[in-house]
């Protein structure tokens, strides 16, 4: 089995260390290195197969720009998030990244995600599904009713097996649906926005409560 080199882009060096520790005992995965920003990670040679990318980096770069750079460099991207700002998550889902994983997820979940990403497979997670399920843009998208059901089930926390059982279809079918949903979602356009707007949207969607609420 080929070894997958895993790199981490996160503001905190400790997160890099944690991932290194996580990956140390796993066959087929090896820790490459950690960098605080994407531009610091990208060197002349591509020495990572999968990059765990923090969703909100302190250097103000956008998820889309980061994923584009990493993809161009030659690595696959998995997002890491600690606080699920739904707007940022949606923006992440619209990139070519393979999925979005919570930093606080159990270690098996993170490892499985890394292996799937190494194979180039999309990693559907509850966070991903929930972000899509609530995106108003998806209402107008060409998704079948069955696909929306699958999405909703996933967003409620079910895994592929449970969804397949609930809808009386095979797991393969469910995965096909998920792939199609992802493809459709990536076609949806929203113009690139400025950093200030990004965080303004964060306020919109509830990251910071608006005056008078709560």
């Amino acid at each position, binding site marked *: 089995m080929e070894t997958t080199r895993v790199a981490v882009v*996160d*503001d*905190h*060096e*400790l*997160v890099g*260390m*944690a991932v290194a*520790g*996580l990956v140390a005992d796993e066959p087929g995965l090896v820790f490459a290195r950690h960098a605080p920003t994407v*531009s*610091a990670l*990208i*060197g002349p040679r591509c020495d990572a197969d999968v990059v765990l990318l923090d969703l*909100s980096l*302190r*250097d*103000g*770069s956008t998820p889309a*720009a*980061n994923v*584009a*750079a990493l993809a*161009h460099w030659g690595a696959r991207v998995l997002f890491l998030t*600690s*606080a*699920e*700002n*739904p707007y940022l998550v949606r923006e992440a889902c619209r990139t070519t990244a393979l999925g979005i994983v*919570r*930093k*606080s997820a*159990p*270690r098996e979940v993170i490892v499985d995600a890394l292996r799937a990403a190494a194979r180039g497979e999309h990693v559907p997670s*509850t966070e991903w599904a*929930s972000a899509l*399920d*609530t995106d108003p843009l998806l209402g107008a998208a060409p998704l079948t009713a069955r696909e929306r059901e699958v999405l*909703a*089930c996933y*967003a*409620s*926390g*079910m*895994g592929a*097996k*449970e969804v397949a059982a*609930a809808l009386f279809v095979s797991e393969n079918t469910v995965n096909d649906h998920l792939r199609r949903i992802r493809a459709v979602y990536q076609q949806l356009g929203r113009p690139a926005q*400025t*950093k*200030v707007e990004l*965080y*303004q949207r*964060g*306020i919109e969607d*509830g990251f*910071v*409560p*608006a*005056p008078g609420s709560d």
Partner: protein
Amino acid sequence: MTETVAGGRAELRARRLFAIVAALIATILAAFTPLTALQRGLVVHQSELWMLGALALIALTGLAAPRASARTLRIMAGVAVAGWVLVQVATLWQTAGQAVLTPWVITASAAAVITGLVAGGVALAWGVQLVASVLVLVHRTLLGDITFAGWVNDTQAMLIGIVVAAIGAITLASGRRLDAATAERAAAAAAAASARGRLAARSRAAAVVHDDVLATLTLAGSGLPIPRDLLAAQAARAEGSVRELAAGTFAPTEPFPAELAAEVARRDPAARIEAAGDGAAGLPDDVRAALLGAALQAVDNSIRHAGPGTRRHLVVVARADAVTVTVTDDGVGFDPAALPADRLGVRVSIVERVRDAGGVAEVDSRPGGGTSIRLTWTAPPEPPKPDTTDPRMLRLGVAVIAVVFTVTQLAVAILAVPTARFWWVPLAVCVGLFTATEVLRRSPTAVPSRGRLAAVTGLTLVVVAVGAVLSPFTYADLWFVTTAAFVFVAVAVRGCLRWALAGAAVLLVIVVAVGVSVGASPATVAMSTARAVVVVLLAVGLTRVVAGMQARTARLQERAVRDEERAAWDAAARDELGDRAARVAEHAGPILRRIAAGGELTDVDRRAALAVQGGLRDELRAGRLATPAVAEAAACARARGVDVLLLDDAGDRPDLDLDGVDAWLAALLETARVRAVGRLLPAGRGATASATVDGETTDFGG
């Protein structure tokens, strides 16, 4: 009427427009001189030559207009007007006792009037017209050249002069108002953006703090082998920044140049650094972050791409109202145009970032010639004083025009009686046209209704048709054609441009048709209709320009209002932040301090960290689900080692009934062993909420 010496863009454009229009009219007039001279058998009066000179000055002003500055334009126009008036006076002197007929070109004052408008506004324009009219009158009296045709000619010229001057004045005023609105809007937008930026910076600061806290807690709770001292240091930092955020003092303490210099020195110890100025204490947070990030990005790029042995030079100058950062290196350079758009690098992280913050980034590089990147930011200017144009002058103008119009047309109508075929025709035509103007004037709405417009146009055209058929076809007897044109001018000024153009077109057709049918010479037909066509075209054109400017002014003002609203909202939101930070400090403080103490973390500690971390995430994402009952059950579950995720996806769902949801969910959470997801469902789903506990999903409600 107050006028600013250096007008803004819109006003300058209007002035240029007038200069060009005046030049056009002057050139056409100048072209007529040889033609009329030919008609007279190549006899050219000396006064006509002088007039050609004056017209040439006006034409020159128009030619120079597109490139001239406001000042130059006004000076040139002033000289041209002065020249024209002088020629008028000189002509008076010279032809006293010489020629018999007043050269027609002397009486055509429109070009000079418009040029006067460019030079000195409506006051000068009317002044020029007054002088011209008086001089022509004196001229004619001296020559004994007072004829009906002359009277018609002179009154028409005067009317056109003052009407065009008035419309021109309105155009200039609109231009000034548009300039003021533009400047105001720019200032308001800048203020709003900087306020938003400051809020964003603070919410970003809050986000950073959250991230730090959550990361610390996650790491602590994960049980992975992380060096204890590093974790403790991180926890201490996180706890400190939370307390700072709560206290509202989360601001960088170092002056910008020092911070930038330190960061660059860290990356490249050999770099040459010049940092000056500390006046940037008032630099907005978002600008500071953008400049810092962009400059460091430039340095990073240089380190990575410029080749070994490159020497880097940083110059940062920060004043209170402007900041300049220059990063240069003598490395291999690159071709800025050759960067593909999707690469993270110069374009996005430097140029756009600085532009979003309101600054400018200039990237200079040549392959083999080193690289220089310059970032500049200047504080947005103060909003200008509001425009204090006096509207009384304009209203007076309209009243004067009305009076002059009525008096002159009545006089001309009466004078036309002797030469008319039927004595009553001129008077009937006059009454008819006055009725038309009155019907138009009495419109209850600013823009007259279709019916009213149809009535006015129809009446005017019928009257003209009747008059044209029943009058001798001479220039003077067709005086009412130009009068009718003024009706259409009034229509145009009210915004009904198509009606005005259509009416004028039909008017033209009628007169030409009648002329052709009675076998009149083309010259007569042309002379009878020329002024009518010119004045309608001018009115329509200027009204279009004014309408455009007024629309843009309205849009800008609306935007300014929205920006003010948003700024107010932002200010209120800013206060919420402090509250949230206090809660975070409360929840996470204790466990962070325990981690910072550096001792071995027990299982209990780890579970506690996860529980607090989960609780913090819930604050952001759980929304209405996070009732005390649910929060308690979730904390207990997390303490047991369960991975709990709570999501409020209900948004603005109208049929939301939260009764009993929390008890139901809390009960389910108590049974969880491994993993639990609770979710409030979005609109359009049957159920209110769903919960997936250890692989089994149940719905609530609906």
